[in-house]
């Protein structure tokens, strides 16, 4: 079980439940036999915004931010504003680089245009990723335009607010 799932409340993680008609065991219809279900969340829109970064001409700079401590962030879209498109970007979260390898000809990350869109046409990711509370995220920029540039990157998504279970709601109301 990972931190995005919890024990199935119907089968209590056993994957099997008793059929109410004849008492035989059957695969749990709620979790489909997995024994775990995704955690329930309430989602609220949130923009995970990095401060503007000034990238010197033909040079490098980085900007770092710590994720808010009171919620996990579900990351869906990349958007960026830059004064030039000839900037490469590399994302690192908790010292893990989100890139396969740095090979000859590509020692500087991903072209910003291939990694981020605009609010109108965002780089929409099909499968979201959760940045946990208090994670440290760093963006490294490299300029190839020959001019000093300013880049502002925002990751768009949702706050994940754990939904109260029935038992929690009952305990609070009583």
């Amino acid at each position: 079980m990972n931190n995005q799932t919890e024990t199935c409340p119907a089968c209590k993680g056993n994957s099997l439940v008793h059929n109410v008609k004849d008492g035989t065991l059957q695969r749990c219809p709620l979790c489909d036999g997995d024994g775990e279900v995704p955690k329930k969340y309430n989602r609220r829109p949130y923009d995970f915004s990095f401060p503007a970064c000034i990238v010197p001409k033909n040079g490098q700079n980085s900007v770092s931010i710590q994720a808010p401590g009171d919620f996990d962030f579900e990351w869906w879209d990349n958007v960026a504003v830059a004064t030039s498109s000839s900037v490469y970007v590399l994302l690192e979260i908790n010292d893990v680089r989100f890139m396969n390898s740095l090979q000859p000809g590509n020692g500087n990350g991903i072209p910003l245009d291939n990694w981020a869109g605009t609010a109108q046409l965002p780089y929409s990711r099909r499968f979201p990723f959760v940045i946990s509370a208090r994670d440290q995220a760093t963006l490294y920029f490299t300029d190839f335009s020959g001019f000093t540039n300013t880049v502002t990157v925002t990751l768009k998504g949702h706050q994940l607010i754990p939904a109260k279970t029935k038992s929690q709601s009952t305990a609070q109301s009583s």
Partner: protein
Amino acid sequence: MSGHIKDLSFWLTYRKRLTDRFMPDPKWLPKLYHLPPFWYDFSFVLQSQQTLKLRQAARYDGWLVSIAGLSNQIPPPDPPEPHPAGFQIRMLDIRHNRFWSRPFIPESNFCGTGSQRTFLRVPERFHKGDAFQIEMTNLSTNVLKGSVTMEAVHDGNQRS
């Protein structure tokens, strides 16, 4: 887990309104949901009509999700006569050692852009050690700078 689909159904509908290109495939969503993203980038410089082959081995097990590309040469929108520009490309099937297309195809038929990427309808499975290989040919007589970026998600199985 089928539960993911039920939980996300409302939000996917909501997102569809925001981004009409977003095409969730319910079959794959539970499998790849919340897996870490990972990017493979091939940046290159091609001399006049040069062909180049680039290869990059995967460090993780994962699924290839989408492809974006760019170059510093943009084909004219409505040329009076054919005017080669940009580059053409073909990719080697990373698992079966076959090309995705036999001839080279124009970049714009192969990859989208950062904001409008080409999504694979079914994510392509690859394993650590599998190689991504692409071959590009510069169609113009000018020097071309370009990049092809592949977005993947991985399941944490990293080569030691």
